[in-house]
C-alpha cells in the first residue's frame, strides 16, 4: 500500500505493525517524533506495547536491556547525544546477546551542539557489538527496521541492531513509500521466543555476571563470531524480504559499478545526490559509479574489495570526523578491505557534510574531477581532506 510519510513516521509505523512488548523512550531531536507517533498509537489502544517514558537515554537503553533479558521484545529510538549517553549500555546489550532494535536518527554529536545530520553518533558506537544498517531514504528506513528483528533475533546471531537514517534529511522529509500489510509484517517478523529469559517459569536465569579473565575472552570471541555470522543472516533476511516486498537489498548497493573506472563509497542519503551526479557524468562519458554502504557492522570488507577491484580510483566519503589524523572511519575500513587486492585503485578520503553541511551534485562532480585527475597524473595528492567548509581565502 502506498503512503506518504516522513522517515520518523515510517519507522514509528513499522514499530506499530510489529507491536513490540516494550519500548523505552526519551526525546531527542531529530528522533523525537518516533516516540511521539508511537505515543498516539498507545493512547488510542492501537498497540499493546508497554511504553516506558524514562528520564534519560541511559535509562531507556537500560529498560530495553532488562526487558529483553526478561523475555520481551524491546525497541527504542534516539539520536546524537542520546546515543552517546547510552554508550556504556550498548556494549552491555551486545555482550548479553540481547537483540534489541534501536532506531538511530543520525545527528552530529556535541560539541559544539548541532542538531543536523552526520554520522558522528553511530560511528562512535561502531565497535560496540551492534549490527548497523543505514538507510538512504524513507523506504529503506522502514524496510530496514522490519528486517532488524529477523536478523538480530536469529539464534546464530543474537545481537542488537541499530537501524540508522539521516537526521532531518530522511527523518523529517516526506516521501511516497510502499508499506506492507500488517499481517504480512507480523508473519515476516514472527514472535519473539527466546530460549532463556528471566521470567521463564521453568527455570531461573542469571544475566550480567562479573566475568573474570578466565572467561571474559571466550565470551568476547563468541560475540565476534556472532557478528561474522550476521553477514549471511542479513542476506538471508534480505532475500526473504524481497519475496514479500519485491525490494532487493544487499550488504551495499552498487550503482553503475559494472564498468566504473571512478567510484565513490558513501553512506545514506548522499547516495541520492551522488546517483544524480553520476547520471549526468555518464552522459558526458565519464565512467563513474557508486557503492552505497548499507551494512557497516558487520563490515562487508571482502565484498567491497571485489566491488572496487575494477576501478582505477575511488573516493571514500566520510560524513563523520574520526580525529584519527589518518582519515574517517569508513575510509579506515575501506582502505583495510582493499589491502588484499593484487591491484588496488587509488584511494582518497574526503570528510564532508558535518553537522548538516550541504552536499550537492556539484560537490560530487568535483570529487569525480579529482579522481579523474589522479588517474591522469598517477598522483594521489593529499589522501585525507575535507570538503564544503569555508576556506581561509573566502573568509578573508
Amino acid at each position, binding site marked *: 500500500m502506498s503512503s506518504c510519510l516522513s522517515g520518523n513516521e515510517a519507522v514509528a509505523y513499522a514499530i506499530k505493525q510489529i507491536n513490540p512488548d516494550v519500548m523505552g523512550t526519551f526525546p531527542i531531536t531529530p528522533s523525537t517524533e518516533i516516540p511521539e507517533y508511537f505515543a498516539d498509537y498507545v493512547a488510542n489502544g492501537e498497540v499493546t506495547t508497554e511504553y516506558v517514558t524514562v528520564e534519560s537515554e*541511559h*535509562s531507556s537503553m537500560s529498560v530495553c536491556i532488562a526487558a529483553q533479558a526478561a523475555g520481551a521484545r524491546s525497541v527504542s529510538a534516539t539520536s546524537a547525544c542520546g546515543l552517546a549517553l547510552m554508550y556504556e549500555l550498548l556494549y552491555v546489550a551486545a555482550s548479553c546477546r540481547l537483540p534489541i532494535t534501536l532506531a538511530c536518527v543520525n545527528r552530529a554529536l556535541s560539541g559544539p551542539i548541532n542538531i543536523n545530520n552526520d554520522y558522528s553518533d553511530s560511528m562512535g558506537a561502531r565497535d560496540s557489538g551492534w549490527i548497523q544498517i543505514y538507510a538512504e531514504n524513507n523506504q529503506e528506513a522502514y524496510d530496514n527496521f522490519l528486517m532488524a528483528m529477523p536478523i538480530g533475533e536469529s539464534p546464530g546471531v543474537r545481537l542488537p541492531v541499530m537501524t540508522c537514517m539521516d537526521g532531518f534529511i530522511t527523518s523529517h522529509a516526506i516521501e511516497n513509500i510502499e508499506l506492507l500489510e500488517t499481517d504480512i509484517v507480523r508473519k515476516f517478523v514472527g514472535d519473539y521466543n527466546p530460549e532463556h529469559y528471566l521470567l521463564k517459569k521453568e527455570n531461573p536465569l*542469571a544475566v550480567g555476571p562479573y566475568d573474570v579473565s578466565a572467561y571474559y575472552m571466550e565470551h568476547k570471541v563468541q560475540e565476534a563470531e556472532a557478528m561474522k555470522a550476521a553477514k549471511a543472516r542479513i542476506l538471508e533476511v534480505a532475500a526473504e524480504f524481497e519475496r514479500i516486498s519485491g525490494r532487493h537489498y544487499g550488504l551495499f548497493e552498487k550503482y553503475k559499478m559494472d564498468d566504473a573506472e571512478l567510484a565513490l563509497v558513501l553512506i545514506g542519503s548522499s547516495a541520492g545526490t551522488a546517483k544524480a551526479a553520476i547520471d549526468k557524468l555518464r552522459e558526458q562519458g565519464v565512467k563513474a559509479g557508486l557503492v552505497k554502504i548499507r551494512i557497516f557492522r558487520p563490515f562487508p570488507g571482502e565484498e567491497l574489495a571485489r566491488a572496487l577491484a575494477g576501478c582505477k580510483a575511488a573516493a571514500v566519503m566520510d560524513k563523520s570526523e574520526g580525529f584519527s589524523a589518518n582519515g574517517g572511519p569508513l575510509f579506515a575500513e575501506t582502505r583495510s578491505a582493499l589491502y588484499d587486492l593484487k591491484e588496488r585503485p587509488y584511494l582518497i578520503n574526503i570528510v564532508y557534510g558535518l553537522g548538516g553541511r550541504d552536499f550537492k551534485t556539484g560537490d560530487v562532480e568535483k570529487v569525480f574531477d579529482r579522481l579523474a585527475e589522479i588517474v591522469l597524473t598517477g598522483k594521489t595528492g593529499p589522501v585525507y581532506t575535507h570538503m564544503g567548509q569555508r576556506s581561509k581565502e573566502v573568509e578573508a
Partner: protein
Amino acid sequence: MNRVYDLKREVEKPERLTGGHRLCAGCGAGVIVAGVLRALDKEDKAVVVNATSCLEVSTFMYPYTAYMDSYIHSAFENSAATCSGVEAAYKALKRRGKLEETVKFITFAGDGGTYDIGFQSLSGAMERGHDMVYVCYDNEAYMNTGIQRSSSTPRFTRTTTTPLGSAQKGKQQHKKDLTEILVAHNIPYAAQTAPLGNFKDLHIKSHKAIYTEGPCFLNILSPCPRGWDYPMDKLAEIIKLAVDTCVWPLYEVEEGVWRLSYTPKKKLPVADYLRTQGRFRNMFQKGNEWMIEEAQQYVDQKWERLLEHTGA
C-alpha cells in the same frame, strides 16, 4: 504480615541467597540480602537486580550465581531503570497472556549506586511508579573500589578520598538524607531499617515493601568491616549501637504517614557508636573533641526532626 514474626520459621524457609558467595565475613550486605529475600512468600518468584557493587561481584562471578531466583546486573548507575525494564516486560507478557505466575522485583544497590551515580535512575523509576522494591544497602562509602567517600559518608569519616591530612581531616560534609528524599517522591512505602537483633524490623519492612503495590524503598544500614574498620564479629553490636544512638533511626513512611519503628530505651551518646570503628578514630584525638560534639548535635537535630514527623 498476618502472622506473628517467628525467626525460627523464617530461617527454615529455603535460602534464596545461598552460602558460598564471596562477601567478606562480618559484612552487612549478605545478611541484608538474605533477610530481605526471606520476606518473599515461599510460592512467589522474584527477579533480583543488582547495581555494580561488592554485592554483585561477590554473588555472581561467572559461572556461579548465589541466587535461587532470576537475576540481572547491567551497570552501576542503572539498577532502578533495569528493574523498571524487567517489570515492564512482566506487565507486557502478562497482558499478552504469556505469563501467569506472580513475580516480584527487588533491586539491591550500595550507597554509591543509590545516593550518587544511580540517583537519577532511582528517582525516575520511583516517579514512574513501577511495582518494585529498591533496597539500598548503605555502607556509607564506595567499598567495591576501595573505600572512597560517597554522599552517604558521614562527616569526619576517614576514607581514601577524604584522608587525614594536615589541612583537612576526613570528610567535610554531612551525610545526604536519602530516605527523606525518597519520601518526598510520594511513593507508597519508604523505610529505614537494619539487620538488628532477630531481624524482625528488617523482615516486616521488607515484606511490606515487597507486597505493597507500587514503588517502595528500603534504606538499610550495612556495616563494612574493611571500610569501617571493625573486627568482623562486631557487626551486630555496631548495628545495635547505630540504632540506640539514633545515628540510624528505624522508621517508615506509609502513604505519607510517618511512624517511628524503634525508640531506644536509653538514647546512647553518639561517641559510643563512633568509638567502635577505625574510620572515626581521628575524632577521638586530643583537640578534636569538637568533632564529637558536632556529630552529637547533628544526630540530635535529625532525631528531633524525625520525632516531629512521626509525632512520637
